[in-house]
C-alpha cells in the first residue's frame, strides 16, 4: 500500500492540470436563467423569460423602465381621438434595424398586420386582436384604429410582446423569423444553440449613442437551482434569476456576489369558488380571509421574501389602491363562520396551481390555519397538465370542481385592466380566462368596462378604485402575499434589474474589469 499516497498525488496533479484558467475577455456577460427559451419571437411567446431575453434584440414602440413605468421607446409620442378609437403615433427618427433597414411607419404596419392576422396563429393574437387596421400616414407617423375603445391600449404596445421586427426580415424569413430575429435593439442575434445557450453581440448601429456598454450577452438556461447557484460562485455566470429563497444564505456569504430582493407585482391569493356552497356566502369567504396570518405565511413559506398583500391589485400596477393588509383576526373569523351557519366548520378541497416546494409549504400552512376555524381541507398540488384540465379549461362553470385554489398572477401590461378583468370580470370565467373564483359582480363589471371606454385618467382611477373596494369587501379571494424577486449578480456587473413583473431590464448593463 506504499504506492497509495503516490497514486493520490498523481490523481490530484491530474485534476489540477485540468483547472480552468479564467477567461480574459472583459465585457462578455453570462446570464444563468431557469428554463429554456420557447422562441425568440415575442409575438409567439407566452413565457416572461423568452420575452425578457428577446429584449436583447427587439424593442417596442413603448416599453417599461426598471420600475415598470411606461416610457416611449421607438415611438416619440401619441395622440388619441375623442372616441378613443384612433391612435396616432409619432415615431423616432434615425433608428436602424440590424439588417440596415430604416425603422419607419411601414414596420409598425407590417408587425401589427402580422399579429392580427389569425392565419399566422400567433400566441399573442389575443393581446392585439382589438386592432381593426394599421395605416402608414407618412414615414414617421402611423395610425392604429381599434375595433372598440380600449384605454389601456398603449400599455399593450408597451407589453414585451409588442416589438418591432424588421419588415425586410419578416418578408425574407416568414415563419422562420424565430431562428433569425432582426430588430432595432442594442444587441444583434448571433447564435441559438437550442440545447445550451443563446448568444447576442453588440450592435454598432444602435440608435442610443454609447450603448450598449458590453460586447456580448450569453443567455444560458441552467434548470437546477443549486447548479445556478454553483455557476454564480465559480464565476461562470454574472447574473442569475430566480434565486431560491433557501439558497440566500449561501450566496450572501460570497464576497464577490450581491443579492437583490426586488419588489414585484406578483400577487398570491386563495380564490374561492363563489358559485358553490359554502363559498357562495360572503361571510364564509371573509372568515377564511380573517383566519390566515399573512405575515407568518410570508415568513414560513417565503423565508421573508414576501409581504402581506395590500389590495386586489398590487402596488406598482397603475391604478392600484391600497386597501389592506386584511387583518388576522381569529375571533372575528369564528363569529363570521357561526353567523354563516357553519360554527363547526366544514370539509373542502384546497388545490394549488403549482407543485413546487414553496406551494407545498403554503398549502400546508393554509391547511393548518383553516383548521383553526374548523375547516378541514384536503390538499392537492396540481401538475401543469392537471391544472389545465381541471381548472383552466373546465367547460361548464356550474360543475367546476375547483373550490379553494392557491394561485398567483402578474399583470404584464402594468395596468389595472389586466389585473382585474381576466381574474374577476364575469366574462372571464374558465375556460375563457382565469376567474377561478367564478366571481360575478355587476358593479365590478360595469367599472371595468367604463374604465376601458374612457381615456380620462381621473375618471379611470375612480372606476378602478370602486371596483377594487367592491372586490375587497366581497372577498372572492383571500389575498395572501406579494412576492419579492430574488436575484444575484456579480459585483462587477451593474445595470441589470429584475422588473416587478419578473422580466429583466438591462439597458444600462455594464461590466467593470
Amino acid at each position: 500500500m506504499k504506492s497509495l499516497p503516490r497514486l493520490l498525488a498523481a490523481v490530484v496533479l491530474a485534476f489540477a492540470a485540468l483547472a480552468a484558467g479564467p477567461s480574459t475577455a472583459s465585457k462578455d456577460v453570462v446570464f444563468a436563467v431557469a428554463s429554456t427559451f420557447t422562441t425568440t419571437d415575442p409575438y409567439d411567446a407566452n413565457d416572461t423569460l423568452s420575452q425578457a431575453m428577446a429584449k436583447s434584440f427587439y424593442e417596442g414602440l413603448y416599453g417599461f423602465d426598471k420600475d415598470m413605468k411606461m416610457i416611449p421607446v421607438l415611438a416619440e409620442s401619441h395622440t388619441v381621438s375623442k372616441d378613443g378609437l384612433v391612435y396616432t403615433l409619432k415615431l423616432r427618427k434615425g433608428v436602424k434595424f440590424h439588417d440596415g433597414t430604416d425603422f419607419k411607419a411601414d414596420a409598425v404596419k407590417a408587425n401589427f398586420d402580422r399579429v392580427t392576422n389569425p392565419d399566422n396563429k400567433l400566441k399573442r393574437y389575443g393581446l392585439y386582436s382589438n386592432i381593426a387596421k394599421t395605416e402608414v400616414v407618412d414615414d414617421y407617423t402611423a395610425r392604429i384604429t381599434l375595433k372598440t375603445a380600449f384605454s389601456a391600449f398603449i400599455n399593450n404596445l408597451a407589453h414585451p410582446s409588442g416589438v418591432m421586427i424588421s419588415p425586410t426580415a419578416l418578408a425574407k424569413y416568414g415563419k422562420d423569423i424565430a431562428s433569425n430575429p432582426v430588430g432595432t435593439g442594442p444587441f444583434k442575434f448571433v447564435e441559438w444553440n437550442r440545447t445550451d445557450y443563446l448568444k447576442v453581440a453588440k450592435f454598432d448601429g444602435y440608435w442610443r449613442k454609447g450603448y450598449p456598454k458590453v460586447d456580448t450577452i450569453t443567455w444560458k438556461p441552467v434548470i437546477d437551482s443549486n447548479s445556478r447557484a454553483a455557476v454564480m460562485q465559480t464565476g461562470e455566470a454574472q447574473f442569475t434569476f430566480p434565486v431560491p429563497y433557501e439558497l440566500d444564505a449561501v450566496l450572501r456569504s460570497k464576497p464577490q456576489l450581491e443579492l437583490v430582493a426586488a419588489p414585484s407585482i406578483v400577487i398570491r391569493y386563495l380564490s374561492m369558488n363563489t358559485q358553490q356552497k359554502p363559498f357562495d356566502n360572503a361571510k364564509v369567504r371573509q372568515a377564511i380571509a380573517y383566519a390566515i396570518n399573512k405575515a407568518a405565511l410570508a415568513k414560513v413559506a417565503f423565508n421573508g421574501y414576501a409581504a402581506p398583500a395590500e389590495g386586489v391589485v398590487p402596488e406598482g400596477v397603475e391604478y392600484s389602491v391600497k386597501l389592506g393588509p386584511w387583518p388576522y383576526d381569529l375571533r372575528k373569523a369564528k363569529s363570521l363562520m357561526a353567523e354563516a351557519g357553519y360554527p363547526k366548520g366544514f370539509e373542502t378541497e384546497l388545490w394549488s396551481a403549482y407543485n413546487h416546494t414553496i406551494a407545498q409549504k403554503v398549502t400546508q400552512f393554509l391547511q393548518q390555519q383553516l383548521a383553526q376555524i374548523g375547516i378541514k381541507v384536503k390538499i392537492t398540488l396540481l401538475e401543469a397538465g392537471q391544472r389545465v384540465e381541471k381548472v383552466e379549461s373546465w367547460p361548464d362553470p356550474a360543475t367546476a370542481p375547483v373550490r379553494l385554489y392557491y394561485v398567483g398572477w402578474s399583470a404584464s401590461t402594468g395596468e389595472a385592466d389586466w389585473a382585474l378583468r381576466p381574474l374577476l370580470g364575469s366574462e372571464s370565467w374558465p375556460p375563457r380566462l382565469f376567474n377561478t373564483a367564478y366571481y360575478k359582480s355587476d358593479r365590478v363589471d360595469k367599472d371595468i368596462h367604463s374604465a376601458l371606454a374612457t381615456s380620462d385618467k381621473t375618471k379611470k382611477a375612480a372606476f378602478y378604485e370602486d371596483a377594487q373596494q367592491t372586490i375587497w369587501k366581497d372577498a372572492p379571494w383571500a389575498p395572501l402575499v406579494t412576492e419579492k424577486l430574488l436575484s444575484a449578480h456579480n459585483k462587477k456587473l451593474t445595470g441589470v434589474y429584475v422588473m416587478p413583473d419578473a422580466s429583466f431590464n438591462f439597458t444600462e448593463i455594464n461590466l467593470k474589469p
Partner: protein
Amino acid sequence: MLQYIVKRLLGLIPTLILVGALAFLFVHLLPGDPARLAAGPDATPETVALVRQDLGLDEPLPQQFLRFASGIVHGDFGRSLRTKRPVSVEIGERFMPTFWLTVAAMSWSVILGMAIGIVSAVWRNRWPDRLGMALAVSGISFPAFALGMVLMQVFAVQLNWLPTVGADSWRHYILPSLTLGAAVAAIMARFTRSSFVDILHEDYVRTARAKGLTEATVVVKHGLRNALIPVVTMMGLQFGFLLGGSIVVEVVFNWPGMGRLLVDAVDMRDYPVIQAEILLFSLEFILINLVVDVLYAVINPAIRYR
C-alpha cells in the same frame, strides 16, 4: 448466427408497431390540453383555438393517429409542439451528448465494478470483500442528485478544477460520468461478486485447481469467462437505462440530453416528442438485448443460436 440476427431484427417490426400504438394512446390519455398549455393562462379561447389549429390538434384522434403512423413510415416524426421544430432534429441534437455520457460512465464503472466484484469474491469474507461491498452498498444507496451536487460543490465550486455545467469539452464529462457511473459500478460489483462466488464452487474450478494451475489462471481463465454471462446481461440493462438519459444527472449538470428533453416534453404535453422518445427507448432496448445475446455466444462458444 447471421440468420439468427436477421430473424431477430425482423421480429423488431411488430414490437415497434405495438409500442408505437401504445405510446400514441398513452400520451393522448394524459390529462391536460397541450394547446391551452402552449397558449398560457392569460390566452383567450380564440387564441387557444388558433394554437390548437396550428398544432394540428383540432383533428379527430383516429386521423391524428393515421398522420402519426404514416409519418413514421416516411421517417417523419412530426414537429415538436413546444418549439415547432422537427422532432428528429430535437432528438438528434440531444442523442449524442447522452450517448457519449453513457459510454463514459459505463466504461469506467464496468471495469471498476467488475474488478471490485472479482476481488471481493476471491477474498470472500475477508477485508477486501468487506471494503468492496461497503463501497458498493454506498454506491447504490447514495442518491445520484446528492452525489452530483457534492461533486460539483467540491470540484467545481470549492476547488475550481472542473467546469460546473454544460457539455462542451471532455472536462465537462468527468463529474456527470462519475455521478452517473457510481450506481452502475456498485451494481456491477455486487453482480460480479455473487456470480463469481457461485462459479468458484463449481466442480471444474476444483478440477482446475487440482490440476495444479495457479490461482490467477483459475480465476481469470476458468472463472471469469463463466461468471460473465449474468454480468453481461446486467451490463446491457444498465446501458439501456442510461441511454434513456438520466433525468436527475442531466438536470443537475445541465446536460443537453434526452432526459431533460423528456421532462420538458411531458411538462408541456409535447405529444410528438414523447412518442418519438418512447419509440427510440424501446428500439434501444431491443437492440441492446440482441447485442447481449450475441455476446453470450462469443463468451461461451457452447451457446449456439439458430
